[in-house]
């Protein structure tokens, strides 16, 4: 564990990622303190450019504060990113483990199913799902989880299969350890790190999917989100570039941060790199 932290912190990109991510999280946490008013509040003069009329990042067509929106948007993006990834992880890892451990027909069926799911243009499925079941935090999270689990399932399956084949697992079985003990003490700990890494990257892609859904007008109408802000700014890009610029930067920073952290985590959790 110490090695992992050490390797992680030994990577400048990892530290940069952590810092950027900290900024995003800080935005999410401090939004209600710094901008206690609702981000929907039309508190300023419409179409104020950044810095104009005391608006740090300007206002939108209705006079809503972009800065407040960006801060509050962090909450929605991170929440949806994390919760939907957890849901996808749950489904994906469960199916992957069952397939990898059970093998045989169960495996074949799960693999085929996963493959088909991967063929489907996932974003279109997410659109369809949210549009038909009407947009809300719940449907968006379920939709993102629905399109995010297949890679995780495949990875989990591959990992479980490869680790189960490894000789130390066979040795553990020969040592008389119970299957559950083998699974939890030997297989999972050795299989989990790529899953953790991919999971962390899934958060990033979930944030991007959420943004794209909101951009298409399929966001939860009661929660300010970055994608929504860009979508609302799209038609007036000629008149008010800042409406779409700043939320985009926020997404960019967050996603870059998560990717950097994920990569550093990958290096840190990879015993070949961290232990030699």
């Amino acid at each position, binding site marked *: 564990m110490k090695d992992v932290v050490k390797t992680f912190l030994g990577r400048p990109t990892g530290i940069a990622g952590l810092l950027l991510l900290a900024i995003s999280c800080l935005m999410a946490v401090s939004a209600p303190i710094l901008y206690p008013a609702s981000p929907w509040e039309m508190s300023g003069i419409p179409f104020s450019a950044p810095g104009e009329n005391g608006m740090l990042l300007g206002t939108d067509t209705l006079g809503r504060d972009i800065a407040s929106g960006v801060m509050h948007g962090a909450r929605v993006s991170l929440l949806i990113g994390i919760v939907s990834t957890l849901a996808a992880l749950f489904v994906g890892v469960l199916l992957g483990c069952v397939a990898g451990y059970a093998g045989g027909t169960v495996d074949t069926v799960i693999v085929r199913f996963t493959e088909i799911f991967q063929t489907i243009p996932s974003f279109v499925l997410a659109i369809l799902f949210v549009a038909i079941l009407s947009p809300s935090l719940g449907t968006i999270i379920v939709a993102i989880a629905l399109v995010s689990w297949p890679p995780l399932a495949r990875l989990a399956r591959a990992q479980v299969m490869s680790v189960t084949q490894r000789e130390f697992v066979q040795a553990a079985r020969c040592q008389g350890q119970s299957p559950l003990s083998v699974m939890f003490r030997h297989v999972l*700990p050795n299989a989990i790190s790529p899953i953790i890494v991919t999971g962390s990257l899934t958060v990033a892609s979930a944030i991007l999917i959420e943004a794209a859904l909101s951009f298409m007008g399929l966001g939860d109408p009661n929660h300010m989100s970055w994608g929504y802000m860009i979508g609302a700014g799209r038609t007036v890009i000629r008149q008010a570039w800042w409406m779409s610029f700043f939320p985009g930067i926020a997404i960019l920073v967050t996603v870059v941060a998560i990717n950097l952290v994920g990569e550093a985590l990958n290096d840190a959790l990879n015993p070949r790199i961290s232990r030699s």
Partner: protein
Amino acid sequence: MSGGLLSIQSLSLALPEGADRKKALDAVSLDVRPNEIVCLVGESGSGKSMIAHAILDLLPRKVRYLDGDIVFNGKKLTQAPAGEIRRLRGSDLAMIFQEPLTALNPLRRVGEQVAEAIYTHRSDVSAKSISQRVIELFSQVGLPDPAAAVSAFPFQLSGGQRQRVMIAMALANDPALLIADEPTTALDVTTQRQILDLIRSLQAERGMGVLFITHDIGVVADIAHRVVVLRHGKVVEQGTASEILNNPRDAYTRQLMDAVPGRGHVRAGGGKKTALLQISDLRKTFVVKQGLFAKYRRVDAAAGLELSISKGETLAVVGESGSGKSTLARMILRLIDADSGQVLFNGEDVRGMGRVALREYRRRAQIVFQDPYASLDPRLRVGDSIARGPIAFGSSRREAEATARKWLERVGLDASAFDRFPHEFSGGQRQRICIARALALDPEFLIADEAVSALDVSVQAQVLRLLSDLKAQMGLTMLFITHDLRVAREIADRIVVMRNGCIVEDAPAETLFSSPTEDYTRSLLAAVPGRKFFADQDITATGTGIHA
């Protein structure tokens, strides 16, 4: 400088920071003359491959040149511009590598790859004559149907055939010096024999100088004119083959010679014959499917095996890769389920065991795997890895840890090893830990699945000795799986030869070596490198074998 083709003069190379030693090579000097085979012998990490790479200027970036000269045909390679060395590579200076599997570009036809060696150096040759030349080379290196072979892709060829392609490629421009870096190590023993013979005959025909790098003294004995022994980047000893082999002056050379397995007395089978393990009509077929819609391929790993192991006996199962020997080991332990047949352990049907019985059985029958790097959980302290077994069988944590420490000492490690992680140990040490883990459960039966194959020869000898000592002390019955007849001879009472999932021959060790009944066994025996030399030596020398 004695009219040498290649002369290396006190060459020193630096290893990067943090390596286990400072210099990859430390003032190495050696010569290769035309029309001779110089064997460069050493264990892993001795720096023997570095020399080969240094000659061709193919060193990894991290290795720095420090000092010394490499002179080829009177030209100083160490100061030559890169372009000049490149012109020499593949024309006057050719090289073949260890892994024929990876040394060829998988995406290009082998003929093209050989042709490339030609047109890279000769722009004046027509495409037609190049392809003729390639076919000619292919027939010289003994590839069947050379005209067809040129358009094959590497994956369509066997390992031996690929190595022949590599040799053809090396010979394409009639090099003066051929550097062969462990060219037979990855091959099965019979194939190794053919390739060695090929290299020797081609060398003789062409009067080439050959720098042959190997770790195997047996191979040295088979082909070397002169020998250079390398250890930790330093030349320990060099001289003619007969000098070095018959009269090693240096202690290390002697140690290497002694470590070569399979030279002591063949063990005589024990007297009483109570069967511990009986296998009858055991069958297993693997259905291999590559890619989603690829066709199925059936591989028989066990085609009705019949085998019996007596209590206290050491049985070696010998076979080339793909013979089904490892599958056999796994089926015995039920790590793989057999398709049909019977496995009786002490009269109990292993295949019919329930969970409880199976657990108890596995306590009594343990296994040591081949790859010491893969067989220890990288996330567990080695002490825990050992202690897990006793704990699973009801020992208290403290008892189990005590057992683990005791076993660590018993296999020749310090008890303080308990708290360390696998990656802190060398291969030999890890294999000792694996043995400790297996024996900590106090089994009656131990399977060693290629347990020493991945180890250097001197370490191999130590581990073999450890195994045989422990076996004697504990009265173990042992199933020893190996591809190396010499190792089998070293440790086994009885030897079973397997091929394609069938048992070819099953005989006491003595009988098998002295009067093999099957052709296949004979060809295996004949292929053992250095057999003739050691056979001669054993007659003349006064029993310096490692056995008491």
